[in-house]
């Protein structure tokens, strides 16, 4: 089975532009989470979606938005790009959400965004 896939793999934008990143979860997984990983740091939680509803949001400005589609794939949108948005954006999928024994997240390879 294919793992989590993300597109594009690399992207270069200029300040003020808008970007859309895409993620396809593992088949059967209904939850998708997005993380930002700045060089030299651990991933930071941006959003989680489950069954097309937002279930969690990290400490990111409103320039960041996301959605989940009926096939459980997801898009992350970032408006008015800043230099500080340059990072590796990781998508992770899991079977569900809120199970008592927790959920394991499986990560995609990421999209590397460079803002000039």
């Amino acid at each position: 089975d294919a793992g989590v896939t993300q597109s594009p793999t690399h992207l270069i934008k200029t300040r003020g532009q808008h970007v859309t990143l895409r993620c396809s979860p593992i088949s059967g997984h209904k939850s998708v989470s997005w993380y930002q990983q700045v060089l030299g740091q651990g991933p930071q939680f941006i959003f989680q979606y489950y069954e097309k509803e937002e279930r969690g949001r990290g400490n990111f400005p409103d320039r960041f938005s996301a959605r989940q589609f009926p096939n459980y794939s997801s898009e992350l949108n970032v408006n008015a790009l800043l230099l500080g948005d340059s990072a590796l954006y990781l998508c992770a999928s899991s079977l569900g959400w809120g199970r008592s024994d927790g959920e394991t997240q499986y990560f995609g390879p990421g999209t590397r965004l460079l803002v000039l």
Partner: protein
Amino acid sequence: AQSVTQPDIHITVSEGASLELRCNYSYGATPYLFWYVQSPGQGLQLLLKYFSGDTLVQGIKGFEAEFKRSQSSFNLRKPSVHWSDAAEYFCAVGHNNNDMRFGAGTRLTVKP
């Protein structure tokens, strides 16, 4: 608020030597704890996780970790390191995988 500290930014060990990577967490309730590994240009791969039960957890690639509530620690160990283990290692704490918090990572270099 939940948080994770990985005190060692960079560790170098010789191939065949033992390894211990440190992780300390802060969490109000019983934490869900994870160790992930990231090779250059790759996403994160789960090594092991702790939710409850036996405090010594076995993972993939010969790794294990021990949950010590009294020390708020979840250190990762491997008895004999292989050159292919060179990578970045992340400890994470979370609950219901919502708002999972990662440490800053420990970069492992393996000397031949």
